[in-house]
């Protein structure tokens, strides 16, 4: 055996990730226990203020709204993703159809959000048409509420949800479905008892790919949300840049990280042996390699 070059090759990686990811994450954790300084920044004095400030109804409400919006959006996204992925997987031209899913996913994220502002905004496409047709006199405010946030989250993450479902449905042996039907199962029974258990891995992955980024939403509620849709990401940003209470911004970040980790752990529990395959999926997914 040759000399062990592993540490040499991995040294830059280890250093970079430690300095620019691990250290900053630890700093946030430490900051959440410090005292706030007047113009942003902190005083190096231990304090639980950052966490005490969280024990009020308005903060708990934000946590609730964040989880609620994420759960509803994930549920609806998966509801659309399953039949769409199923249709693509069973189609003769699956590669071309898959490309149709990947194109919106390549489109710049902000542009995708902006498209909905152009359509549903107060001066948007829909309002203009309705006014022209005489249906309404003045605009209807479609945006700046929870529904708009949920809609745009679904729009943004639906491609991420379709791809893992597609790869697991594609591997599924469809003759099993026919067998179930021949043996007298109804369509619903065949779906819930035969197809669903066999695509569990893909389903869990697509839930994860929607739920985790939805929890950390910041841009979408900022651009199309209103008072009823402030999410954790928005109040972190507010405390950091407007109020300049850095210990509080840090403690909220810790809360968001903990919620996210709980989500990931629940998912891993559902999907014990799948960690490796998920890692690969994340990568292939994002690279859109599927369509080659």
């Amino acid at each position, binding site marked *: 055996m040759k000399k062990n070059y592993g540490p040499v090759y991995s040294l830059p990686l280890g250093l*970079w990730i430690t300095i620019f990811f691990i250290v900053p994450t630890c700093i946030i954790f430490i900051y959440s226990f410090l005292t706030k300084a007047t113009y942003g920044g902190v005083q190096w004095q231990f304090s639980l203020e950052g966490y005490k400030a969280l024990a009020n109804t308005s903060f708990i409400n934000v946590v609730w709204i964040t989880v609620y919006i994420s759960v509803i959006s994930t549920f609806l996204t998966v509801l659309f993703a399953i039949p769409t992925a199923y249709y693509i997987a069973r189609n003769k031209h699956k590669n071309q159809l898959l490309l149709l899913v990947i194109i919106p996913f*390549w489109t710049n994220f902000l542009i995708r959000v902006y498209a909905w502002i152009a359509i549903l905004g107060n001066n948007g496409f829909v309002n203009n048409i309705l006014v022209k047709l005489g249906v309404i006199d003045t605009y209807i405010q479609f945006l700046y509420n929870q529904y708009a946030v949920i809609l745009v989250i679904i729009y943004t993450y639906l491609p991420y949800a379709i791809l893992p479902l597609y790869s697991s449905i594609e591997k599924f042996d469809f003759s099993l479905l026919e067998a179930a039907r021949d043996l007298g199962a109804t369509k619903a029974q065949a779906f819930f008892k035969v197809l669903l258990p066999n695509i569990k891995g893909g389903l869990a992955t697509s839930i994860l790919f929607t739920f985790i980024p939805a929890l950390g939403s910041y841009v979408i509620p900022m651009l199309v949300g209103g008072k009823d849709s402030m999410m954790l990401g928005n109040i972190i940003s507010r405390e950091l840049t407007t109020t300049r209470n850095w210990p509080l911004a840090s403690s909220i970040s810790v809360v968001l990280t903990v919620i996210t980790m709980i989500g990931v752990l629940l998912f891993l529990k559902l999907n014990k042996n799948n960690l490796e395959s998920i890692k690969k999926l994340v*990568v292939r997914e994002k690279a859109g390699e599927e369509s080659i």
Partner: protein
Amino acid sequence: MKEKHRFSFTMFILTMIFFYLPIAVLIIFSFNEGKTMAWSGFSLKWYQKLFFESEELWKAVFNSVIIAIFSSLVSTAIGTLGAIGMYWYRFRSKKYIQVASYLPLIMPEIIMGVSLLIFFVMFKIPLSLLTIFIAHTTVSIPYVLFIVMARLEEFDYSIIEAAYDLGAKEIDTLFKVILPISMPGIISGFLMAVTLSLDDFVITFFVSGPGSSTLPLYINSMIRFGVSPIINAVSVVLIASTILLAVSTRRFYKYMFS
């Protein structure tokens, strides 16, 4: 057979309408004469404004491209070496490096943005293109790492042992054997990093300073001013160029590696 898929077919069509309706509206209205989302006649004036009267925007595009190139080169180098080191060797800190480089994938973007901002302020590093470069490199490294690892899994170690047995030094083995066989993975990783960097808004938003605007930051500031037909034109150009880029890299990739 057709009969059976009626439900999934309907859902598929609905999904496609949902995906493409907004994009279609943007494309159509980029050719609108008027300033609003009410159609008032065909015109190319927004494209003319975009290409000839939007200096700030092109400066932002230039920044985006520079950052994308440099951060992708660095993250590809670091990620590739890391993948090689961790795939074939065992060493003490390996488990730590593995877990630490897996975490950024699941960490909410906003937390990475906030923590890097606090880090830069704490160490008095002025917010600039440099800090955006550091942030983008950090985000891309895990993706490059896993893409290259996936490639390494496909060929066996005996090729490398053969190189050693034939007397190749470590450096020769790296440049003449390991890197060439991992090249498809390295290129995918690099392209991935470029895409991530060009698209990133959230983290960039936190770590950018005055005068270091990128394209997504510029688009954001335009959106905040309300609907503008120039954004429609930018969107069309961006969508067209991503599709073109994707198709041509795919062609190139197929040509090179198969």
